[in-house]
């Protein structure tokens, strides 16, 4: 679809509004890149629905406000911008992000924060499977993912750096169908806990902080579970205050529950697996 001029509306000198209704992702992303290159500081995108790669590889200091459901790979390879999403993100948000900030007012799908090297992802709601998988820090970069609700299984799988928080601010939403009386064969505990199964499996760097208790049976063997220490608290406080500010929440309330920390047992969890 050709890029139509009226879709771009200039509200203030450096604020631009784009209507994404029916736009192919390629056209939408072209509009965003053009606007950013022309010096826009805030880009407001309306009617987003499923467009992929929004903010992909973007390196300019711009704030993108998205309204709707962002498609897969939101902010992939992004280096610097801020994306604020009023809606849900699909799979792969913040995939391999280098720096910047993604604030999601809804939920995010699977593999949120995959291989993030830096920057921050704040999710008000919950995330799917394998969030924060293989996150890694590098030099001064420390990626941070904060999940307001609960996380699916394999959270922080082979995590190598950075920090993940799971806050459980809202009770995990039970699957709204097939509810009622539980049949006897129901597989228990599949989707009932704050972090799902295999949390921190294979982690060899970074830390996962869970607000409240963690069931060791649901964690990977490579993670050491302990209460967050006094050393952790200043960092946690700073992160939570920042997070709370983004969503208008009370940081004091979030911090009123003690955090549990999952840390790697070793930086080389599989060193003994091989024969030479």
């Amino acid at each position, binding site marked *: 679809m050709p890029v139509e001029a009226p879709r771009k509306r200039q509200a203030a000198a450096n604020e631009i509004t784009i209507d994404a209704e029916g736009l192919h992702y390629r056209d939408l992303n072209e509009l965003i890149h053009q606007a950013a290159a022309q010096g826009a500081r805030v880009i407001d995108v309306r009617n987003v629905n*499923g467009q992929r790669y929004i903010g992909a590889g973007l390196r300019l200091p711009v704030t993108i406000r998205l309204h709707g459901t962002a498609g897969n790979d939101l902010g992939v390879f992004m280096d610097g911008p801020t994306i604020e999403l009023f809606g849900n993100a699909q799979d792969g948000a913040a995939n391999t992000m280098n720096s910047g900030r993604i604030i999601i007012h809804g*939920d995010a*799908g699977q593999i949120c924060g995959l291989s993030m090297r830096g920057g921050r992802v704040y999710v008000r709601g919950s995330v799917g499977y394998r969030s924060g998988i293989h996150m890694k820090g590098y030099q001064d970069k420390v990626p941070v993912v904060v999940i307001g609700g609960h996380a699916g299984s394999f959270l922080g799988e082979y995590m190598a750096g950075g920090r993940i928080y799971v806050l459980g601010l809202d009770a995990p939403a039970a*699957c*709204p169908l097939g509810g009622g*009386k539980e049949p006897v*064969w*129901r597989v228990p505990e599949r989707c009932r806990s704050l972090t799902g199964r295999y949390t921190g499996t294979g982690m060899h760097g970074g830390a996962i902080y869970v607000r409240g208790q963690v069931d060791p049976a649901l964690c990977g063997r490579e993670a050491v579970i302990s209460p967050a220490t006094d050393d952790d608290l200043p960092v946690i406080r700073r992160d939570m205050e920042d997070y709370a500010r983004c969503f208008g929440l009370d940081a004091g309330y979030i911090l009123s529950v003690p955090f549990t920390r999952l840390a790697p047992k070793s930086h080389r969890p599989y060193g003994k697996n091989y024969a030479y």
Partner: protein
Amino acid sequence: MRRNLRERIPGGCAIIGVMSETGRRFDGTTVIEGIRCMHERSNGLGGGFAAYGIYPDDLKPYYALHVMSQTHHEHETMEEGIRQHFRIIHQEPIPTRRHPRVGEAPILWRYFVAAPTDFAEPPGEEEYMVGRIMDLNGRVEGSLIFSSGRDMGIFKGVGYPEDIGEFFRLDEYRAYLWTSHGRFPTNTPGWWGGAHPFGLLNWSVVHNGEISSYDANRRYLEMFGYRCYMKTDTEVVLYLFDLLNRRHGLPIELTCSVLTAPFWNEIDAMPPADAELWRALRQVYAGALLNGPFSVIVGFEGGMVGLADRIMLRPLVGARAGDLVFIASEEAAIRAVCPSPETVWAAEGGEPIVARLARSAGGSEPASAHKVEVPAAS
């Protein structure tokens, strides 16, 4: 129409299902718009739809055999076979309209048939139907019965699914349940029969992903008389549902849980009586475990179920808006046709999303499953 019977066809895809739990019927434009939103997930080599509750009252009781044939000769051979095994109540070409983006279609015909004799018990008739359909599909080259349920139909072909939907004039049908599939086959050119959904009796399956355990499942199913003539992994999903639910009487939810069985360490942690059951289920149905990345939507008489593999390697999202239940690969597909559902949630690996017709709408468990009285957990 060329069947590639030697090779299995892997692929990635888009799937969506929409159902009214009250049995309200709505036309095919909703599901077409939904699948159109996921255009990116298909490559134009296959698209299709299943629709439940579409046929007029006088034809509802009969099996609707949708047949595609490459040549007139093959069409006639198949028709002869159908006539030989079944009583044909009514037959007609499947209505289509010319579509600029849909290529040359095979001969598309539908027969409303009954079993030749009255069977004392319903399973007898179903077994007969399944046996004959498998036989005809295996025997008649160049022709395929691709839909065989009652009061439901499958419409599929080579093209993007939204185009295929328009080609089959699905805006003119009204169904309480629609599923659709956009195909991204990776190694062979699509052929009309290879598009999804796959169907057997009232089952229909749309599938995104690949069943890495395919041959283990296929060889397991062959022990029970199923013949996997399509050589696609979707086929084994279909037959496993048929075997476990229709023939072995496991309820739909349990069927789903067997196909995506809990891990042994989960079973070990269960209370003893549950663990004993699950151990038995995994031991007995080892060949039914579906392994690999997949999400499927299975339609059946009176409901649909969405299911993703047990470690969630393919996406699946559910949503509800009023009487409508949506299941799709991407949330955006749902929002494209229903911008503000009441709830949207991501499926969990191995946790089925089941939607059923309310009893008042005439819904019930499919086949035999309701025979088992299920007590509630304490």
